[in-house]
C-alpha cells in the first residue's frame, strides 16, 4: 500500500514539475523572442514567475456562472488533469526508474491521452456560452482528427521494435546503435510531432482557444483554481508528449556511444534534456508562427498526415519483412 502511495506521489510531483519547467520555458521563450520584461527580470531573473502565477490563481475566486450545468462544469477539468498525470506512469527515466513498465506501454499512453477530449468537450458544453461551445466543438474536431496520425505514426515504431513496452522500445534502439529517428522513422517522427502539437492545442493549432475570435474558447467561463488546472494541464501534456516522443523516436534515456552500464545514472538527465530540446522547438514555433484556419487544419490531418502515416506503416512493414 505504501508502495502505491509513493508511486502516486511521485507521479503527481513529476507531473507538476514537468509542467512548471515548461511554463518557465514557454514564458521565458516568449519574453526572449518578443522582449517582454516581466519573465526576464522580475524576481530571480524571472524564474519564480510560475510560483507567482499559481499563487495568483489559487487566491482568485472560483466563479461558477448561474446558468451552467454545475456537476459537469465542475468536473470537466478533472478529466483533463487525470489523463495528463496518468501518462507520466509509463515513461521510463532509466531501465528501472519507471512507475509501471507495462507490456502495452505505448498502447496505454495512446488510450489515456484520448481521455482529455471528454473534459474539453464537456467544459465547452456546460459553460452555457456560445464562445465556449464553439471552442469545445473545434477542440473535439481537432482532437479526433489528430489522434489518428498520432496513433498511426507510433505503429511504425512498434513494428520496428517488435514490442509495445516503452522500456523494450528504448532497449531495441540501444541494440540497433542508433535512435529510430535516424534508423528509418524520420517521417513517423515528424508526423508524431505535428499531431502532438495539435493534441496540445498550441499555436499553430490553437483554434479551440483562439483568443482573438473566441475569447478563451472552452475555458472562457473558468476562473481561479479550475482555470489553473486547464492551464497547467496544457504544459503537463506538452512535457509528457515530448518525453514520449523522445522515448519512441530519439532513443529515450540513452545516447549512442555512452556506456550502457551507467544508464541508471545518466538516464534521467538524458531523457529530460531531450524532452527540453523538443519543448524548446515547440516554444519557438509558438512564438513565431500564425494560427491555422479551421479548414486548413482538417485538410492537413485527413489529406496529408493520415495518408503519409499509412504509407509509413506500409514501408516499415515491407522493410521489416524484406530485410
Amino acid at each position, binding site marked *: 500500500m505504501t508502495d502505491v502511495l509513493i508511486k502516486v506521489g511521485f507521479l503527481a510531483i513529476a507531473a507538476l514539475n514537468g509542467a512548471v519547467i515548461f511554463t518557465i520555458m514557454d514564458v521565458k521563450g516568449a519574453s526572449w523572442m518578443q522582449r517582454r520584461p516581466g519573465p526576464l527580470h522580475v524576481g530571480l531573473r524571472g524564474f519564480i514567475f510560475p510560483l507567482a502565477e499559481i499563487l495568483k490563481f489559487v487566491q482568485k475566486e472560483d466563479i461558477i456562472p448561474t446558468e*451552467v*450545468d454545475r456537476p459537469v462544469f465542475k468536473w470537466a477539468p478533472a478529466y483533463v488533469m487525470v489523463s495528463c498525470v496518468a501518462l507520466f506512469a509509463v515513461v521510463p527515466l532509466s531501465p528501472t526508474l519507471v512507475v509501471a513498465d507495462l507490456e502495452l506501454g505505448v*498502447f496505454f499512453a495512446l*488510450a489515456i491521452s484520448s*481521455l482529455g477530449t*471528454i473534459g474539453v*468537450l464537456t467544459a465547452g*458544453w456546460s459553460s452555457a456560452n456560445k464562445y465556449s461551445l464553439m471552442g469545445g466543438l473545434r477542440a473535439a474536431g481537432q482532437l479526433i482528427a489528430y489522434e489518428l496520425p498520432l496513433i498511426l505514426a507510433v505503429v511504425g515504431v512498434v513494428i520496428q521494435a517488435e514490442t509495445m513496452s516503452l522500456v523494450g522500445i528504448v532497449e531495441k534502439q540501444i541494440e540497433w546503435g542508433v535512435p529510430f529517428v535516424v534508423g528509418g522513422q524520420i517521417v513517423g517522427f515528424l508526423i508524431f510531432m505535428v499531431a502532438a502539437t495539435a493534441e496540445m492545442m498550441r499555436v499553430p493549432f490553437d483554434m479551440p482557444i483562439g483568443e482573438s475570435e473566441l475569447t478563451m474558447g472552452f475555458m472562457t467561463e473558468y476562473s481561479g483554481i479550475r482555470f489553473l488546472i486547464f492551464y497547467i494541464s496544457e504544459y503537463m501534456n506538452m512535457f509528457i508528449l515530448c518525453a514520449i516522443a523522445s522515448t519512441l523516436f530519439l532513443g529515450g534515456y540513452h545516447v549512442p556511444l555512452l556506456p550502457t552500464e551507467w544508464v541508471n545514472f545518466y538516464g534521467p538527465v538524458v531523457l529530460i534534456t531531450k524532452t527540453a530540446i523538443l519543448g524548446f522547438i515547440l516554444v519557438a514555433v509558438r512564438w513565431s508562427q500564425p494560427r491555422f484556419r479551421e479548414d486548413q487544419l482538417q485538410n492537413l490531418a485527413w489529406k496529408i498526415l493520415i495518408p503519409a502515416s499509412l504509407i509509413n506503416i506500409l514501408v516499415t512493414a515491407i522493410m521489416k519483412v524484406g530485410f
Partner: protein
Amino acid sequence: MEIFEIVTYFVLLLLVSTAVRVVTTSNVIHAAISLVFTLALTSVLFLLLSTEFVALVLVLVYIGAVIVLFLFGIMITRAPLGKNAELDNDKNKKLGAAIAGSIFFLFSYILVNGFEGEVVITSGSSTELLGEILLSRFVFPFELVSFVLLAALIGGITLARKDEALIDEDQV
C-alpha cells in the same frame, strides 16, 4: 473473502449503478458522461481479468472515439442545458426492461454453458495470443467485420450528402 473479490464486486456494483443512470437521467449529456464511467468500469473489469489489451481497446475506441463523437454529435445538433422531458419514454419502459432481462439471461446461459469453467488461455501473454488467433483461426470473420464497417461508412456518406450538398461545394 479475498481482496480481489471485494474489489470485483465493488466495481460491479458501481458499474450497475452508472449503467442504470445512463438510461434514467433526463439529460442527454449526463447520460453520455455516465456511459463514459460505465465503459471505464467495464475496462477495469477486463483489467481484473488480466486482459489488458481488451481493457485498453475499450478506453481508446469507445471512450476516446465513440463517446467523443456522441458528444460532438449531440452538441452540434440539440443539447439544451437542464432537463429534457422528451427523453422520458414511459410507454416503452416495460418492453425495454423485458428485452434487457432476456438478453442478460441469454448471454449468461451461453457464457456459463459454453465454457463450463474451461480455461481458454493457458500460457503466454493474452495480447500475443489474441493477435495470433485473430489473424489465423478467425481471419475470415475479422476481414468480414472490416467490410461491414466499410459498408457502414459509405452508407453514412450517401445518407448525409445528397446531390445539393455537392453542388453547393462546387459553387464555393
